[in-house]
């Protein structure tokens, strides 16, 4: 989403301005801390006065977020933050609205609201903390848990096909879709900023580690030892390269991506796919989103950023303006009187 800074230059803010007095109550070592840190660094960089931020969340460990951001915040009910956030943005389009949710909150109970929020293109920034588990209720599997995961509620392993948040968001036609990781504050901050600057709905998945109930779930992808081979940093206009020193790349083979070695022995750089966040085909981002562990490196960064349609709140405002232009500003007495009246005379 984007919000124009107020006319008068806002006093420069810094991270501390967004820190609340409340004790942060996540488990020590939880990935949420790093995300909080990143967002507290992002907000001051946006040039928006503090009171214009609103952080709306559902229920879950992640959804405790608003309590820790020193601005307006609303910790709502499980899965329903998209509804509240939509109401906030429609009521006051000047606000910079951030929606914090979890994989359970946003994709299990809240999946439908999320789908419609994305489809409507309300100018809101969605941050989905994906730890592939229900943290707050102490460890049941979630809609992003991999098949076979043993949890309290799947003692013999889950057999449900997981959802991929990025694919979900692309499928729901979100204009801005990105993925970032809780162990890279710089990447998070840059991603959040890009989301904020996109006018229209922005959806960001964050790989988040839950130390208690799903520790290390992303280590095969973003662990110190693995990340070179397993993370593919998406950079607009750059070829898709990864591996130590970018030794490998991604090439298109029919409708499928293909890993190639780049350089003398392998493929030439110009055979590689060039990342284009504004790619005209929906299938481009969809193709990226199909890549992932273990066959492919996992892309992180902005998958897609297009501004094809007006935002929902602008649509509402436009119809109000337009009817006022044609029918005139509504007059209450006229409304009360209506079209057909009659007079009962005195006496």
């Amino acid at each position, binding site marked *: 989403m984007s919000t124009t800074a107020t006319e008068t230059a806002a006093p420069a803010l810094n991270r501390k301005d967004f820190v609340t007095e409340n004790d942060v109550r996540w488990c020590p070592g939880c990935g949420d801390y790093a995300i909080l840190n990143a967002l507290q660094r992002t907000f001051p960089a946006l040039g928006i006065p503090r*009171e214009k931020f609103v952080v709306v969340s559902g229920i879950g460990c992640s959804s405790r977020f608003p309590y820790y951001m020193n601005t307006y915040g609303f910790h709502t009910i499980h899965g329903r933050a998209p509804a509240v956030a939509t109401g*906030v943005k429609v*009521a006051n389009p000047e606000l910079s609205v951030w929606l914090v949710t979890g994989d359970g909150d946003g994709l299990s109970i809240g999946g*439908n*609201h999320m789908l419609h929020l994305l489809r409507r293109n309300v100018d809101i920034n969605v941050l989905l903390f994906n730890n592939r588990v229900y943290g707050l209720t102490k460890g049941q599997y979630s809609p992003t848990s991999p098949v076979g995961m043993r949890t309290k509620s799947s003692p013999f392993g889950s057999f449900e096909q997981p959802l991929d948040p990025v694919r979900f968001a692309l499928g729901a036609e979100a204009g801005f879709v990105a993925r970032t990781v809780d162990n890279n504050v710089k990447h998070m901050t840059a991603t959040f900023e890009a989301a904020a600057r996109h006018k229209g709905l922005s959806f960001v998945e964050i790989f988040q580690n839950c130390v208690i109930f799903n520790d290390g779930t992303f280590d095969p992808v973003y662990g110190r030892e693995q990340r070179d081979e397993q993370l593919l940093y998406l950079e607009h206009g750059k070829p898709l390269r990864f591996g130590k020193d970018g030794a490998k790349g991604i090439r298109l083979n029919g409708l499928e991506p293909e890993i190639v070695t780049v350089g003398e022995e392998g493929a030439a750089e110009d055979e590689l796919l060039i990342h284009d966040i504004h790619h005209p085909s929906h299938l481009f981002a969809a193709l990226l989103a199909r890549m992932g562990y273990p066959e492919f490196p996992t892309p992180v960064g902005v998958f897609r950023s297009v501004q094809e349609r007006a935002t929902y709140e602008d649509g509402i405002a436009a119809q109000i303006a337009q009817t006022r232009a044609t029918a005139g500003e509504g007059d209450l007495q006229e409304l009360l009187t209506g079209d057909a009246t*009659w007079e009962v005379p005195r006496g």
Partner: protein
Amino acid sequence: MIKSKDRFREIDAVVVRFAGDSGDGMQTVGEQFTDASALAGNDIRTLPDFPAEIRAPAGSLPGVSGYQLQFGSREILTPGDEPAALVAMNPAALKTNVGDLAANGLLVVNEDAFTKANLRLAGYDTNPLDDPALNERYEVIRLRISELTKDALADSPLSTRDKLRCKNFFALGYMFWVYDRPIDPTLESIQSKWGKRLPDLADANTRALKAGYFLGETHEISRNRYQIARARTVPGRYRKISGNDALVIGLIAAARQAGKNLCYAGYPITPASSILEGLARHKNHGVKTIQAEDEIAAVGMALGASYAGDLGVTGTSGPGMCLKAEFVGLAVTTELPLVIIDVQRGGPSTGLPTKTEQSDLLQSLFGRNGESPLPVIAASSPADCFRAALEASRIALEFSTPVVLLSDNYIANGSEPWLIEDAAKLPAINVREPSPDEPYISYKRDPDTLARRLAHPGRPGFEHRIGGLEKSESGSVSYDPENHELMTRLRADKVAAVAKTLPPLAVQGAPEGDVLVIGWGGTQGAIASAVRRLRDEGHAVSNTHLTHLNPLHPDLDALVDGFRRILVPELNLGQLRLLLAARYGRSFTGLNKVQGRPFTVAEIHDKITEILTSLQS
């Protein structure tokens, strides 16, 4: 052809019902008849009754659509118990409606529709029109409406099928003649509706209407005609209004009185959809309407809008109320203003979606987890919806609380004349803002109302967090046992404090006597009529109609003490009665009907009479 000699009879009220196939346009002519009567200065109440199906098979029993109205020169409070006149456009309409027609009533039928096929669809073995009993019991007027309409439109360019569609206006014209209604307003309405877009249709309807009217003047069977004088109501300018329309303008007015924008989020559901639809047409009043993906989202959006400073409203019917429950609980605990409209229909579950009932009262009060109190108010007639919309908004905004406004299918679709309010004289809604001079304490309360004062996002220096976990006064999450008890009781006390702001309780009759009738919602007209009749007959009967169901009116305590027996008529199994019995620790008599239909005056009258008799013995 002998010109019939008109014999006018003055009557003070009459009940007319139009019935036909859903494709026959009965709602349209019902509305037109209503408008004409209103413009003729009569008081009116209407009761449209459409089938649940969009368009059931033509000629079938479930496909029958009806429209009843009562109009008169005296105050009219209900659409009437039994029609004095029935127009039946086909056998199915006759079958499903004739049982209600008063003895010696006027029965106008479209003879042409009594074909073999239609008779079979309606389940008649023989043509009921040939039944001598029918002709003995009613004054039957057999008209070849289809043929006569076609004849009247002989030189219209319309197709035969389209010509036949004008037969409702033919029937209307005839009834206009019977009841001496002016036809000009209808002619004008035809012009304004179709004149430009479909001039041929406008012309055909005009001619059909006139043909029906002239038939009355010229046809061979002489018969009674009636004149109904102007009603002696309060002088002033009137309009006709339905319940949902009154909610629409009431909400827009309320937002203006509070200096706020209106944001209405809803999800279509019968019989509440027309609130959303009505508001969507008034965008030039700055109204924001959202058609949400479901009722949960709708209430959440309205709550979000309220939080951000709009007047947030959502509306639905029973099944949708179930879905809103969790969010309403959040509104209770975050103490945000929110108006939730429930246009009740027959339940449980999907129930009888197009019928009326008053069975969501206890749900409104108790349908959430935890101790979750909120004010509940009820509209008692179509026009009263205007007051109710303002009142619900006032309470929501002044007490910073969700409020449930109960209407019902009968009120929503029925209509009545309304003395148009003066926009300049509407009551103010005073939203108290937090003081800019003190540090903001988000759950600190106003001493009068106990409401917390709201700082909406965007206001610098008032940044704070709210949410569904229990909070201390400072607004931080608190698991402290004593704080929870304190907050629980404060929330209850705040709702109770609304009682102090109510106008005196209106009572028809003396404050003491034999029988008090306590009603709420759409039963008002029937109860008031029955009580008036009994008082006229000299009985010590009074009635009061509750506009506020929670908190109950403080005046009620004394009133209840003043009567030997108290009757609580409700279109449910006794929901208000349960609340009253619990509050007063005494027993109340119920009159309960769960048939998807409103009370008749007679039902209430009979029940009171029964009680009066039992008191004598």
